[in-house]
C-alpha cells in the first residue's frame, strides 16, 4: 500500500483507531500543541480518555506519516519560554475524519434501529 493510494482514497484508511479519531476531532476547531490536544480529548470525554505522552505522540507520528496532519511552526508559550510544536489538520485529514464520522454514524444509526440504545438515558 503506497502513500499515493492512501492520499487518493480516504476510505482506505478507515476504520480509524479511537485515539486517532479523537486527535482529529480535537484539531477540527484549529491547530493545537500536544498538551492542548490531550486536554481537549480529556474535556470532551469528561476525563474517561486521558492520553499518555507515548500513546499521543505515537498516534501523532502515524497521522503525520499518513499525511492527515501537518506540523506548524514552533512558537513560544504564554508565560513560559519553552517553544512548542503545533499540529493542524490537512485537507486529507479533514476528509478522513469526516468519512470516519459518517461510518460511525451509520453504525450508531443501525444500533438505534435495532433498539440497542433504548433506555440508555437520553437516547
Amino acid at each position, binding site marked *: 500500500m503506497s502513500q499515493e493510494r492512501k492520499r487518493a482514497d480516504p476510505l482506505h484508511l478507515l476504520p480509524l483507531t479511537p485515539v486517532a479519531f479523537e486527535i482529529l476531532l480535537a484539531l477540527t476547531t484549529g491547530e493545537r500543541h500536544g498538551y492542548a490536544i490531550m486536554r481537549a480529548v480529556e474535556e470532551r470525554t469528561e476525563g474517561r480518555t486521558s492520553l*499518555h505522552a*507515548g500513546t499521543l505522540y505515537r498516534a501523532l507520528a502515524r497521522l503525520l506519516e499518513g499525511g492527515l496532519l501537518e506540523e506548524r511552526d514552533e512558537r513560544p508559550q504564554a508565560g513560559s519560554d519553552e517553544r512548542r510544536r503545533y499540529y493542524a489538520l490537512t485537507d486529507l485529514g479533514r476528509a478522513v475524519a469526516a468519512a470516519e464520522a459518517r461510518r460511525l454514524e451509520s453504525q450508531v444509526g443501525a444500533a438505534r434501529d435495532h433498539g440497542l440504545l433504548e433506555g440508555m438515558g437520553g437516547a
Partner: protein
Amino acid sequence: MSGHRRRTVAEALYRVLLLCYPRDFRGRHGREMILLFLERERDAAARGKRITCWWGASVDAVRNGVGERLDAVGRRLRGAGSEGLDRDGERIGGGGMDALARDAAYAIRSLAKSPGFAAVAVLTIGLGIGANTAIFSVVRAVLLAPLPYDEPGELFVAWGQMRNRGVLTFPTSPPDFKDYQDQADLVEEMGAVFTFQAPLTGDGEPEQVEVGFVTPNFFRMLGITPILGRDFVSSDGTPNEAGVQPGSPGSLPTMVILSHALWQQRWGGDPGVVGRTIELQGPAEIVGVLPAGFELLMPAAAALASAPDLWTAMRVDFVNSPRNNVFLRPVGRLREGVTLEQAQAQVDRIAVSLASEDPVKTSAGYAVRLAPLQSELTADVRPVILALFGAVVFVLLIACANVSNLLLVRAAGRRRELAVRAALGGSRTRIVRQLLMESGIVAGMGALVGVVLAMLGVRALLALRPDDLPRIANVGIDGPVLGFAIAAAAGAALLFGLLPSLQASRVDLADSLNERGQAGSGTGRALLRNAVVVGEVALSLVLLIGAGLMMRSFVELSRVEPGYDPDDLVTFEVAIPFNRYPQPSARSELAAALRLRMEAIPGVVSAGAAFPMPLSGRVFNGRYGGEEARVNPEAFRQAGYRGVLPGYFEAMGTRLLAGRVFTEADFVDSAAVVLVDEKLARTLWPSESAVGKRFLVRATSQEPEEVEVIGVVEHQRHESLAAEGMETVFFTDRYLGGFATTWAVRAGVDPLTLLPAIRSAVGAVDAELPVADVRTMRDRVDEAMGPTRFALTLIGVFGAIAMLLATVGLYGVLASVVRQRTPEIGVRMAFGAESRAILRLVVRQGLGLAGLGIAVGLVAALLLTGVIESMLVGVRPTDPVTFAAIGAGFVLVSLLACWIPARRAARVDPVVALREE
C-alpha cells in the same frame, strides 16, 4: 526552588523511560513528550495522584516504546510507510515479528492489569540486577580492565624472597638487579623503581613531594611517552664519580620528568617548564612532562606510592653499590613468545649463582619469583571482590526465586484464562512464549531500574572505598557494564520465567475449566514452589553468615590493641634536604632542634619522630639473631627496624614494659643501644629479662653488629591492624643514619588545632622545611580498618536484602497455601479442630520449609565461607557462634513470616469456608 528541583528529577527519570523508544522517535518527539509529561505530572501532583501518573507513564512508555520499536522493525522488513494507522500491530497478519509484537502487546496489557504484581516483580529483579551491575563495574575496573600500559600481558614484577625467613616480597639491590638485567636474555627489558618523599624548592614555594626514582628505561618499557619534552635517556642515569654525594659540588644534576598533576598545579601547565632548574636535594633539571592520569600500578606489598609528583632518573652505581642495600622494585617485560615459566627458570639459575657467592643468601633460602603485574596488582583484593560478586549473584538468584514464585502464584490464578485460550486453539508453545514475554518485559524493566540503582550504588561504593583498591576511581557504568546488566536481565528472565511458564502451560483442560479444578493437580506446582523457598532461605543464610563473620572481624579489629594510643595524636612528614644536611650528625642536630621547638608549643604533651611510622605503608626490615647466629647464619630471623628520636614512645603512647626508653644521652655515634618489643624479647629470652642482654643485628654494615637492650616496649601493629606482624628493634635514629622524618605529636587538645603552631615551629628552625602528609593517628587506624568496613558494609547490605526477599518469599508461599487450604481448614474446624491446632498446622509447615532451608544453608556456608578466610580477623570461617546466632535469628524471622498466614488460617470461619467449597 524545591519545585524546580523536583521538576528536574522528574524530567531525568522520565528521560530514562524515554529510552524505551527508538532513537529517531525520541529525537523527533522526545522534547515535546517531556513537556507534556511534566504538565501531566504537575496536574496529577495537584490532585494527589502522582503515583498513578508515574505508573501510567511507565506502562505507557514500555508499551508504546516496545510497540514502536517492533513497528519500526516491521516497517523496515516490509518497506516504509505502510500500515501506518494500525493499532498495536494487532491487525497486521502473519510474520514472526508481528506475532512477537502481538505477544508483547498482550504481555504489557496483562501486566498493566496487575500493577501490584508488576511493581513488586520489577523492583525485586531491579534490586538484584542493580547490585550485580554495581559490583560487576568494580570487577571490571579493578580486576578485568587491562593495565594502561603497552602490551600489559608481557609485564611482570620480580619479588626477592628469603624463604627460610618467611620473607616473600623483598626488594633487590642495584648490583643484583644489574646481574638479572644483563643475564636474563628471555627478558626484553628490565627496569626498577622506588619512591620516597623529598622537599622540592626553587622556582616556587618549598613543598614536600613524592618522588618516583626510576631506571632511565622505565617509561619506555611501560610504553609511556612524555607529552612534553623527552623521555629519560641512559646518560641521565650515569652515576656520580665514586665518593661524590648527589647534590654536593661536582655532582651531576638530577634529571626530572614531572607528573601532569604537579605540572598543572605548580607551573599552571606552562610549556616553558622544560629545561628549568629546581632544587630536589640538589640541582635538578626538568626534561619532560608525563601524560595526565599516569599511575604507578604496583602491588601493595611493594609499598610504593601510586602517584609520585615527579620522577627522577636514578644515578646509582649498579656495579659498586653494596649488595645488602636493597630498595629497588624490578619490573620487566618478557620477550615476545616467551612464557613466564621460561623466564622464571632462567632467573632461578641466576639466583642460584648469586646465592653461591653469598652465604647470607644461601642460608636465607634466597630466590626471585616473577609474577604477572596485572594479577599480582589485584592479588590482595581479588578474594574480597569475588566474594562480593558471589554475594550479589546470590541476591539475584534469590530475587529470581521470589519472582518465580510470584509467577507461579499468578499462574495458579490464571489457569482458567490459560485453559480457555488452550481450548480456543492456542498452542502450548504460543502460551509459553507469551508467558516468557511477560518475564522478558519484567526483566527488561527490572534492568532499567537496576541500572539506575547501580548508578546510585557506584556512587555509594566510591564514598566507601578503601584506599588499597587499585584503580577503583575508574569504576563507572560504561558499555560493557551495561551489556552485563542486559545479559543478567536475559538470564534472570529465563531463570524465573521458564519454569512457571512451562508449569502453567501444562493445563489439564477438563480439570481447570471445572470450578473444582483448584485442588486437583496442585502437588507438582506446590513442590516446585516449596523447593524454590528452601533454596532462597539457604542462599540468604549463607550470605548472612558471611556478613556475621565480617561483623565479628570488624569488632575484633576495633578491639585490637595496636601498641599505641591513636587518639590526640597527629603525625606529619618533615623531609630533610640531604644536600643541605649531608652528615648524619647534622641531621640529628636538626631533629633535636625541631623536637625542642615542638615540645615548647603550649598544648603539646610530647613529640618524637621515627622512620618508618606504623600504618604509614612504609617498611624497613632487617635481621636479628642470638649468640648462635654468629656461627650459624641460619639462626637469623627477620624483624622490623625502626629509627626513633627521644620522645617517640611517649608521643605514641607505647607502654614501656621493662628497662628505660631513650634519652638524649643515647644519641651519640658510639652508642649501640636498642629497645626491643615484647615479641622479640619473648623469642630470644623466653624466661629471662631482656634488659641488659646483647644480640646481633645487621643495620649499618655487611657484618653482624652487636647491640645492647636497654628496654622492652609493647608490640606495635605496623603493617596492618589485622596481622600481628614481626618482632621489632628500635634503634636511635642517629645509629641508623638520621632518617626519622615522620613526626608524632601528642597533644592535650585537639591535635589539629596545633598545626599552625607546628608549622611555624618548623619554619623557625629552617624556613625551607615543608610540613606534609598531616594525618591524625586515628585517621590512619580508621583507614587500616577500611577494607574490613567496606566488605562488612557490602556483604551486610546484600545479606539484609537477601533475608528480606527470602522472608517475603516464605510469607508468600504460606499465604497462598493457607488460601488454597481454606476449605480443608474449614472442614477440620467444622469437625472440632481448635484454632490453636490450625495455627500449629500452618506454622509447622512454614517452619518445616524454613528449617530445611536453614539446614541446607548451614552446610553450604560451611563449604563456602572458606573463600572469605583471607578477609577475616580473629575469627575462623567456621565460627560456631556466628553459625548458631545467624541460624537461630533466621528461625525467629521465619516464625514471624509464618505468623500472619497462620493467624489468618486460625480465624477461618468454617461456615464461610465451606460455602466457598
